[in-house]
Every structure is written in structure tokens, then in C-alpha cells.
């Protein structure tokens, strides 16, 4: 094998002049985590709203929710990313389009919005599944007690539904985090982009990608750990 291994490459200065290759990868990691967290906030709030809309007794709300989920699930994430980044500034009125194109950190905001809306469609499906898995008597009991639909959701249905779907929601959070790597195509310098840059500058292909792999595996382990802790904290006593 005529490949020269050099594990010390991480401590050598990167040609960008901003520090070592290790600093480069860590900066990528920071962007990955920040993008994942910001887009998750949008995804969770919007996804819960859409998921609830799909279970309401109102047919218009159902239709809007279903249309949203079908639209965002049937278009690949990369195509959506391109639509947000390249097409949106062109179809908006001229001043808004120009402002968007000159925005500093435009790839970051675009990636956050795109991932937020994409993951929201998957969160909506999970929330809908969680609410529909509850016995029908729960909603009926809410009505019998004189609660409005909103109050039933707030005090009876959603607390149970969220506890049921915590494991799949963790999966969706991790999917969202892995999907941040797609933003490298629009110029966001997250972890995979930095690993690729390191590979291109130093030709140490396998060292760069091994580091990125280890960092992703570590993030996964940490997130699963935190999620199990949350699950234990919010579990209703006597329900396990």
C-alpha cells in the first residue's frame, strides 16, 4: 500500500493560517452542533404544530398538515437546500433578493431554515403517531371534563404523546444532525466540509475522515446518553 500514514498531521498548521488541522476540524464540529441545535428548535416547534394539526377534528387543518408533510418528504434534502439557497433569492422581490445574497453567513441561515422545515415534516409524523397511539378515551375524557380542544391537547394528550415518542424523536434529532453535512454543498463549513478540506490540503485522506468519523460517533453517543437521562427524568412514576 503506497499510502503514507501520518497521524501527526492534526498538529501541523493548516494552509488557511488559522491554526492546526485539529483546530479546523473542531471549528467544523462547532458549526455542525450550532446548526443542528438551531434547526432542531424550528423543527420541533413547527413539527409539533403540524403533527397536532393532522390530528385535529378540523378537515382544513388536516389537509394543510398532510400537504406540508407530503411536500417536504418527497423532495430530497439536497434539492430543497438548493431551492432555498439559489432559487428563493431569485423569486423574491429584487431588494429582498439582493439583501439575502449579501447576507454574511448566508449558508448558515439557509441550512438552519432548510433543515428546520425538512425535519419538521418528520417530527410531525412522529407527533401524529404518538397522539394516535393514545387510547381514544383520553380525548373523550377531556371533553367529558369540559376541557376545550386546546386544553385537552395541552393537559392530557401532548404530555403523554411526547413521552411515548421520546426515542423516535432522539432518532430524528440525530438524523437532523447528520443532515447538516448536506449543507457543505452550499458552503457551510461544518465537520464533513472541514474534513474534506483537510483531505484536499494535506492529502492525508484516511486520517482526516477517521477523525470526522470518531467525532460523529462521539456526538451520537453523547446525544443518546442525554436522551436516556431525559427519558428517566420525565417518566411518569409507576408507568414503567
Amino acid at each position, binding site marked *: 500500500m503506497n499510502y503514507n500514514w501520518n497521524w501527526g498531521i492534526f498538529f501541523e498548521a493548516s494552509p488557511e493560517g488559522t491554526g492546526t488541522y485539529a483546530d479546523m476540524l473542531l471549528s467544523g464540529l462547532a458549526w455542525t452542533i450550532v446548526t443542528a441545535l438551531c434547526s432542531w428548535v424550528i423543527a420541533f416547534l413547527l413539527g409539533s404544530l403540524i403533527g397536532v394539526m393532522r390530528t385535529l377534528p378540523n378537515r382544513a387543518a388536516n389537509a394543510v398538515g398532510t400537504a406540508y408533510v407530503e411536500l417536504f*418528504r418527497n423532495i430530497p434534502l439536497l*434539492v430543497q437546500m*438548493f431551492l432555498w439557497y439559489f*432559487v428563493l433569492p431569485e423569486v423574491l422581490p429584487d431588494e429582498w433578493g439582493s439583501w439575502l445574497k449579501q447576507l454574511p453567513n448566508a449558508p448558515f441561515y439557509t441550512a438552519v431554515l432548510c433543515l428546520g422545515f425538512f425535519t419538521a415534516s418528520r417530527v410531525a409524523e412522529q407527533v401524529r403517531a404518538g397522539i394516535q397511539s393514545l387510547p381514544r378515551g383520553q380525548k373523550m375524557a377531556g371533553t367529558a371534563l369540559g376541557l376545550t380542544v386546546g386544553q385537552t391537547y395541552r393537559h392530557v394528550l401532548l404530555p403523554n404523546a411526547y413521552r411515548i415518542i421520546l426515542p423516535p424523536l432522539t432518532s430524528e434529532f440525530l438524523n437532523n444532525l*447528520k443532515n*447538516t*453535512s*448536506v449543507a457543505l454543498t452550499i458552503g457551510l463549513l461544518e465537520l464533513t466540509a472541514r474534513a474534506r478540506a483537510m*483531505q484536499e490540503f494535506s492529502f492525508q485522506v484516511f486520517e482526516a475522515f477517521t477523525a470526522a468519523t470518531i467525532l460523529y460517533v462521539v456526538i451520537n453517543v453523547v446525544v443518546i446518553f442525554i436522551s436516556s437521562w431525559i427519558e428517566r427524568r420525565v417518566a411518569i412514576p409507576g408507568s414503567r
Partner: protein
Amino acid sequence: MLANFDFSVITSALPYLFFDGMRFTLTLTALAALGGIALGTLIAMMRLSGLPVIPLVAKTYVNLFRSLPLVLVIFWFYFLVPYLGQWVTGADRPMTVGAFTSSLVTFTLFEAAYFSEIMRAGIQSIPKGQAAAAQALGMTYWTSMRTVILPQVFRNMTPILLTQTIVLFQDTSLVYVLSITDFLGAASKIAQRDGRLVEMYLFAAVVYFAVCFLASLAVRRLQKKIAIIR
């Protein structure tokens, strides 16, 4: 901007888009799905076997590929496959591998992890009496798997396997990072050549939406038809 939407860009590029781009995408999807399901079934069987080390190997494989982004795996295999080829064939320099072969290896191995979880759920949902009856009839493990368990698993899991194949179809668009000409890559090349990003990306989105939406409707109809009333 939508006022000067130019359809002629799309219509003149249709042969290139579909005969070059979509053909690559569909071929990659079909072959990766078949390979992924075959390998995934093997990995699921490894994980459920009672042998000493093999379940751990399978579990590590699945957990590793499920924790990595597909883009990173695409990059990994793009550089790794030539070296693997050199190691396997004993050549004195890395083997030249085309873009299609590299993507095929990537997607087969990546999706095998996801397909193996589906198949594992399927195998575990078959009543234990089936395996016990097969053993009572004197069948070996492989014969009972081949003639009794796996046919039932495939029948039960077909809708989920097809849904995962639709996800694979969408994921193939990520070969864009290697500048490979799949459907999105072809649309992107036309867009950059003619300066018509809006038309081409919207067209690509519409085509992907139409294919995936119709495919999911077909899977839902299939699910209703083959559902077994228990």
C-alpha cells in the same frame, strides 16, 4: 423573476436529463436496493444468531453506519475502494474505480445497515412456532430460513422495504458532492451552463416529488392488498 420563466431550457435538455441523469439514478437505486436488501438480510441473520462473536460484528456495523452522515460515507468509499481493490487483487497500485462502481459500493453498504434493521424486526415478528416446527421437521437452519421464515418476512416487510427504497432513491441525489451526473447533477450542469438555476432546480424538485409521491401511493395500495388479517 418568475415572469421570464424559460421552459425551453427544460424541454431542450430533457433527453440529457432523463437518458443520462435519471438512468444513472434509477440504475443506482435498483442495484443498491437489491444488494442492500441481500446484505441486510445476512446482517440481520448474523445479529440474531446464537454464535459467539458474529452478532457483535453485525451490531457494530449497523451502529457505525447509522451514526455517520451519508455524505461522509460517500467520501470515505470514494477514496477507500481503490485501495480495497488493490488489497483484494494484490496489485501494486490502487485500482482505478469508476464513479458508478464507487457509488454502488457506498450505497449498498450504507443502506444494508438500514435494511438489516427492517429485516431484523421482520424476523423477530414471525411467531417462534414457525422456527420450532421447521426444526421439528428436521430442517437445518439454512433450509428453515430459506423455505419457511424468510418468505414470510419478505411478504410482511415488503411495504417497509419499498419505502426505504424510495428513501434510497432520494439519497442518491447526494452523489452530487462527487460531481457525478445523476438526475440532480445533470439538472445542475444544465443550470450552470445556461445560467437558468431557477427553472432547472424547480424542475428537478417537481420530478423528484412526482416520482416519490406516486411511488408512496403505490406502496400504500400494495400494503392494503397484501395485508394479512391475523
